């Protein structure tokens, strides 16, 4: 089943967890001829995490009152699972309130009852919002990494100036040359320089 699904390109895999067969059928028909391919799980016989692992869904849909919610909650704490948008339906009228408290940040997104006519736009919105959130998050990580690598390069530069009596310009140029010659990133060259210099120090101390 999962092999067939993964061969379909540009399709988004939906894992629908719902004990209510009629409601599930409504959701599945509402999504036929769309970019969503639904895998319906009526009951949890295998460990849900294993199913998620095997299926790699792009989005998970479930009832907010399902006891299985806590299994999904544990996904957050397992780093090897990449976060997935979770859309939760609730029959209760006051879900708008819950929605406000969970919509930002985490992947959970609560909407009203599973009205088949609203299912597709709801999934579209959830996927878009989640993508946006992931983008902001990865930009943040990227910025952090850039900052880290700049710090590393500066550190290596200072070490060369101090220990090899280079000027700042010489230090920078020699690292850039190493980088170009070896095809390594400046950041990796800086790491190598720092490690060699500290090994030299250790070696000198041992003599």
């Amino acid at each position, binding site marked *: 089943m999962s092999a067939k699904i993964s061969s379909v390109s540009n399709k988004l895999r939906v894992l629908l967890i719902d004990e209510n067969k009629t409601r599930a059928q409504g959701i599945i028909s509402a999504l036929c001829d769309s970019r969503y391919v639904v895998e319906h799980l009526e009951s949890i016989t295998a460990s849900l995490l294993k199913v998620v692992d095997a299926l790699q869904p792009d989005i998970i849909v479930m009832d*907010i009152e399902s006891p299985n919610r806590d299994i999904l909650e544990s996904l957050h704490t397992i780093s090897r699972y990449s976060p997935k948008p979770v859309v939760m339906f609730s029959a209760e009228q006051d879900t708008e309130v819950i929605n406000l*408290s969970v919509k930002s940040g985490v992947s959970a997104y609560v909407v009203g009852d599973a009205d088949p006519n609203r299912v597709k736009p709801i999934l579209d919105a959830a996927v878009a919002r989640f993508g946006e959130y992931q983008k902001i998050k990865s930009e943040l990580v990227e910025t952090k990494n850039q900052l880290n690598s700049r710090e590393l390069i500066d550190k290596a530069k200072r070490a060369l100036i101090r220990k090899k009596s280079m000027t700042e310009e010489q230090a920078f140029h020699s690292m850039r040359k190493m980088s170009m010659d070896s095809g390594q990133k400046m950041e990796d060259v800086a790491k190598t320089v720092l490690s060699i210099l500290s090994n030299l120090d250790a070696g000198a101390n041992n003599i």
Partner: protein
Amino acid sequence: MILEKTNLNLGFIPLTDSAPLIVALEMGFFADWGLNVTLSKQNSWATLRDKLHAGLLDAAQMLAPMPFASALGLGVEPKKVIAPLVLSLNGNAITLSESLHHEILKANKLSHITLPMAAYLLKEVISQRKLQGAPKLTFANVFPYSCHYYQLRDWLKSGEIADSDVDIVVVPPVNMVNFLEIGEIDGFCVGGPWNAKAVRAGIGITTLTSFDIWQDSPEKVLGLLASFYQQFPNTVLAMCAALKQACTWLETIPNRFEAARILSKSQYLDAPLDVIAPSLLGSCLTHKNSEPRIIPSYNQFSASHNGSLNQPELVRGEWLIRQMHQAGQLDKDKIPTNLISEVFRPDIYREMKEVLKKHGVSRATSEPWHFDGARMHRAET
């Protein structure tokens, strides 16, 4: 005392240690304080938490680490949740499947397992499975931020079993027994009545209780939003007073049996008396062919060996933070200062005690009985 709000909606998960909330309602303690309480049964901790954060629940029975996870924004948008009352200590147990039971006996060449079981007995099973290329042992707990998880880790660690030697997963309590039976999991750490249920069904062996792992640690607390307390301080005091009375009422064996009867009703645990009553009476069912163990502190709701248990003491909070840190869920050195005293609120508890004193507590609850397993005695005060 004028209550700012009298209608309350409280969330609970159907477990043996939800007794204080159910007793406070059924025995009229909430009503005595002028509170009109609705108890809303919840199916998952995550949804209970989200409803509390959203104000759909005014307060709820929570796993002791949960208010800290809320405050720190672990797995959720951060929200200031406070815990003015500890509702129970202990109450969890570890049950292994019948097939793992036999695997342990065979691997260690034993005729029976001495209880409480030492975790190192699993080592031989784990290494034999490795040799055979068999799957890792899988243990279940109920929530990422739960004492169940930390107790399971602690127990495995005591047998020098590494995190990577086993798989630890989350399974909703309602599915635990079934999963154990069909072999989806090899063991679980869960609260009552689920351990007793597995033993009664003849599909597992309860190898030890959480009291064998950690003596007298907070298990469930009353959680509510800090903003709710700011808005309705007297209501919170009255709610805590009624719950404290319920906890005290739960001290005696006769009352505990009555509590078991109430809990078994369909709107609460919807489970037979013979799986709810044992732990409340200090009995840990172990195995279909063995006698129960006497664990007087299996479920503790009020007095403990270390004095009052209902006060959310800061040292208890520190202990929980340490567990969360050891499980890699947070960096202990990076938590905000005052976090513990902002979440655990012994000050509210003490204020509630004053209110209780001033209002002169009626009924037998003013003179607590001490439940000491084999015997009971009045508090010597």
